[in-house]
Every structure is written in structure tokens, then in C-alpha cells.
């Protein structure tokens, strides 16, 4: 599996590198070679060479730094998308793939405009912050997931969310739904990081990435006792049935 880790040195707010560690370890334990390539501003890569495109969250300043560079890669992103590269987008990465971002002063900042959802800023003192639990429905599977959300942006016009919110906010204040999903893309505000405590999402990301080069993928089960225990502690605390 070939992972392209975008702007690893800029879009690395709180623990997103944990997602990469999980993907690599879960591949290697199954004997699947996993190669990670980092790509930052100005680096020459063909995204289409990769099975998975990973873009994490960054602080506002870092996000503004990468945007121009990301925009230059739009054609390349669309080509890779056409050729079945899959995408995992967290927080800022999620927002940037939408139509636009409306900041506090009402300025409209264009996004990559690959998907029709858009994000409106909320005022500084109101952010969606806290633990979050979802019921995820993806690739014919339904299961619980946990994470931590911390975003001011309110993402709207999401036709196909990643999951239903069981505890927390989601895309908008008390919005009921979180993230965006289609056959190749998983986009979410969930940090935590996302993948360690949600091994089923991790395996779906791996399966989708491998699907670029091969069909009929089955992943051997791994011992997820610790993963599920950590998830269970949080679900119990949030009074969500397991």
C-alpha cells in the first residue's frame, strides 16, 4: 500500500501522525508492505501513483500557507480520484475539499471545490469542542466510533455524512450528522486521533486503498482488545450503548 502523507510538517495538529502509524502497523501485521511518502509545499509528486491520499488538520495559519500549493495540485487530485486513489481527510483537510469557506468577516475563500459541501465560520467563542460518538454507516457496515472534535467551522450541504451523531455536535452545532463519505473518500472532524480507537474505520481505509490495485481484498482479523477497550471506556462514559 502506498500512502501519500500531505503537508506532514504543517497539517499535523494534535496527533494526526497517529493515523499514519495505525495504517502502517495494521498493514505490516498482515504482511502487506506499506510505503509512506511525505509531500509538502513545492514537492513534485504524481498523486495518481498512490493508493491513499492523507491530509490532516492544521492551525489557521498553516492552513493558509498550504492552500495555494494544494490548489495547484487540483488537476492531479482529480486524475488520481478518477483512477481510484482513496482519500482520508481530517478537519482542515475535510474543509479544503469543499466548495468554499466563509470566514468571520464574511470573506469567501474558495476551496478545491471537489465536493459541494461548504463551511461557514462561527464566532471565536463558539466552537464544537469535546468528545464525540457516532454510528458510522460505510461500505455496508454499521458500527460505533469515537473521537474528539474541535472546530469552529460549520460544514453544511453534506448529502452523505460519515455517521449519525450519538453524542457531541458533528458537522454543525447539534447538527446530528458528522463528516462526509463516498466510495473513495472519508472526511471527518474527528481527532483523537481517528484511527487508533476505531480499528474498523482503519481497516476500511486500508481495503479501499488496496482496491486501487487489486480486487477481492480480505483482511485477516487482528487482536484489537486494547483498541476496543479504549473505545468502550469512552462509549460508556458518553452513555452510548456499545
Amino acid at each position, binding site marked *: 500500500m502506498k500512502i501519500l502523507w500531505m503537508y506532514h*510538517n*504543517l497539517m*499535523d*495538529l*494534535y*496527533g*494526526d*501522525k*497517529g493515523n499514519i*502509524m*495505525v495504517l502502517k*502497523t495494521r498493514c505490516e501485521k498482515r504482511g502487506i508492505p506499506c510505503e509512506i511518502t511525505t509531500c509538502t509545499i513545492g514537492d513534485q509528486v504524481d498523486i495518481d501513483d498512490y493508493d491513499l491520499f492523507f491530509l490532516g488538520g492544521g*492551525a*489557521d*495559519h498553516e492552513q493558509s*500557507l498550504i492552500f495555494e500549493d494544494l490548489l495547484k495540485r487540483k488537476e492531479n487530485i482529480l486524475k488520481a480520484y478518477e483512477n481510484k486513489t482513496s482519500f482520508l481527510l481530517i478537519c482542515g483537510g475535510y474543509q479544503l475539499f469543499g466548495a468554499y469557506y466563509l470566514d468571520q468577516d464574511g470573506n469567501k475563500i474558495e476551496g478545491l471545490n471537489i465536493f459541494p459541501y461548504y463551511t461557514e465560520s462561527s464566532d*471565536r467563542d463558539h466552537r464544537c*469542542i*469535546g*468528545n464525540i460518538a457516532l454510528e458510522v454507516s460505510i461500505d455496508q457496515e454499521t458500527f460505533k466510533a469515537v473521537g*474528539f472534535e*474541535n472546530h469552529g467551522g460549520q460544514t453544511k450541504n453534506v448529502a452523505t455524512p460519515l455517521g449519525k451523531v450519538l453524542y457531541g455536535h458533528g458537522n454543525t452545532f447539534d447538527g446530528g450528522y458528522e463528516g462526509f463519505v463516498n466510495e473513495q473518500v472519508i472526511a471527518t472532524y474527528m*481527532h*483523537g*486521533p481517528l484511527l*487508533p*480507537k476505531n480499528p474498523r474505520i482503519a481497516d476500511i481505509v486500508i481495503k479501499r486503498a488496496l482496491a486501487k490495485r487489486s480486487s477481492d481484498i480480505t483482511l485477516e482479523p487482528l487482536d484489537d482488545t*486494547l*483498541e476496543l*477497550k*479504549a473505545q468502550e*471506556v469512552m462509549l460508556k462514559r458518553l452513555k452510548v450503548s456499545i
Partner: protein
Amino acid sequence: MNPTITFVKIAHQILSKFGRGGSLPGQIALKMDKNILSKFKMPKEVILVTGTNGKTTTSNLIAEALRKTGKKVINNHRGDNLNVGITTLLALNAKSDYTIDADIAVIEVDELTVYRQFKNLHPTTLVVTNFFRDQLDRAGEMETIIRRIMEVTEDFEGRLILNGDDPNVLRIAENAKKAKVALYSVGKNAVSVKETDEASEGKFCPICGQPLHYEYYQYSHIGRFECPNDHYGKINPSVYIDSIDYDNATFTYNNHTYHSYINAIYTIYNCAAVLTVMKELGYDPTLADDVFQHYVLKEGRHETFMLSKPCEINLFKNPTGANEVMKEIVKYKGDNNVCILLNDNDQDGHDVSWIWDAHFERLNIPQIKHIVCSGTRAYDMALRLKYESLEDKVIVKEDPKEAIQWLDEQNLDSFVLATYTALHSTRALLKKRERK
């Protein structure tokens, strides 16, 4: 007679008799008069100390060093750095006309609220230690913290004593129009490195946005940096630590040898801040040496308890702090066990994802036999260690009492890392098991 001040002092006396105290008097004072903080007539010299790490130690060292000059100095030595704690300090040291009975006030202030304290406390000096990535859910982005501080320091007419080796702190100097700026810096030494995997924020020139070039890193993003286009980073420090001798725990400044209370790079920075305060206020910096030599750290910082074998407890709260503590643990060559207590209460921050930014792979060494994970997020910690191939060494005991008991029963030297809300309860557990 001033009813509020009098009442607060009486309340403090009564509370102290019962072994209580803390910041309850300040709570009472604020209940009686919510504007009380703006009413105090502050001493001639008011030194505020802020930053992410090292605030409590640095402000205590500054206060102690200034006491050596014979001045009457008050300070909030326990690190109660919010409104309530600061009010307690001032109310207990105020006369009935709100005059503070001291020559100098040294006040540790929370970095998130310091910008609001300027109008109340009328500082003459602001000391900023460093800015690291901290609990995001509580603190928000570091950028917001820096910008808010710069809004008040832009027209500040006092002294700014700043860590010149922190690109995030140096921005305050660039932006200040009226202040007298004094920087401190530490020269290349045995722990300085050319490359690092620790730096997070502050990688770019704030003027042109180009990546900063580092001659060396000391720890995290602290080091000697410069903008490739010459916009930023050329400094002329007021205090420069020439050399550090880690074998003897000494360092030199201006041809004088000082003794450090702990043998670690971040403590040298704390000492450098103190020396700069002494110099800039016109006192003899060498008076501080005695303070450095005999300083006893705050509870839960390098504190050792005699269990079946010695057990050292340390606070950890963000990736930089965790990395530095781990560097010290791995220096210990004998077999040992480690216990990590990870809580996610309000003061710890609810978001524990920062543990994925800290370098726990450092604990993957043969002399560390077991790592006990405890606290409200014990399983998150265990999972983090699993990803450093430490699964076989990990034991989960959610209840801290069981974790400490287990540690004691192993008859092996041990190290405990505890987040803020776990620190005091764990100290109590350790104290209880201590052999006399």
C-alpha cells in the same frame, strides 16, 4: 478599615488553622468585590511571568533571587495563576487602603489570560518563557495566544524579558514599539542537535513566511534560528549562557560559574530568565547562584518517594514536557518500571490526542521492564504504547491506587508521570506508602 481586605485576612487565618488555605480567600474577595483586582495600589516593581512551560519554577526563582537583594518580595509561589490565585496573593498582602505591602510583586500569570491582566496589575516587567503546543481544547491555537499578548505588548512601555531562542516568543520583541526589550539565549552545548523530530509550531519566519534555518536545536523548537532572507532571528541577547557542564550541573554566564538545581537544558533557560531579570533591574546576577543551588522544586517536579525502592514523580502535560521528562528517565541505567497516569479532566485538557505527538518510543529500552498505565484514559495510553511495540511491557490498572501498589510491590526503582489532576492524588498515594 476595609471590610473586604479585613475579612479575607481573617478567613485566611482561620483556614490556615485547619490546614486549608489555597485560593479560597481570593474567591471570597472576588465574591465581595468583583472589581477588587483593579483597586490594588501595586508596588513600584511588578513582574509578570508567563509562557507555556516553566512559569512556576521561573517565577519562584525570580522571587527568591530578588529577596537576596534585601527587597520585600511577594509572589504566588504555588502556581495559582488565574484571577482567584492572584487576588489571594494581593489581598493577603494589602493594607486597608489597598496598598500592597511589598517592594516587588512577582506574579505568575496564565498565558491565556495574561493579556487581560495588564490593565489590573500595571506590570513594569513581563517575562515570557516559551510557547509550546499545549491543550488545544482549553487553549485554542497557539497563534491566538501570541496575538492576544502582542496586542497589549505593542504599546507596553515597561521591560520585556524574552526567550530569544524561541521563535514564537521573539515575535513579541519584533512587535513592541515602546518597551525596553532584553533577550536571553543559551549557547551550543552537549544536547544541541542539528536535526530534530520534536519541533511543531514556529517553523516559519513571521515576516516572509519562509522556513527558518536552525544552526542548532536545544529541545523542541528552542534553539538558534534565522530567517533565510534575514528578516528574523538575529539577536543581541542581554544574557547569553556561554557553556553548560552537564557532568557537574554548572553553567557559565559572564565569566561566572552558576550551579543548576536540575541537570537539564530547560532549567538552564529558566535560570537565564532569572539572570536577565536581575541584570535588567540593576541587581547583581551572581546573587542568584545561591538560589539556583538550593532551590527545591515544587511538589511533583522531580520529587522522590522512598517506596520499596526510590520512586520519582513528575508532571507531564504536553508533548514538549513529556519528551523532556522521558529524556531524563532513559538516562537512568538501572532496571526500572514506569507508571503513566493520564487523566482528561478540565485542567488536564479533555483532548488526549497530544500523546501521539510525544516521543514515547524513547521508553522502548531494555532497562524499562514494565509500563503501568493508569488514570481516566489508561487505555488510550496503553494503546499509544502498543504502537511503539511496547505491548508486552504494558499493564493497565485504571485505578491509580492499584497502579501505585503494584509499583511498590515490584521492588524496583520507578518513575511516575502524572497529568495535572492526577499529580496531587498520586503524591498522596506515594506519601502513604513511603518507608520512614
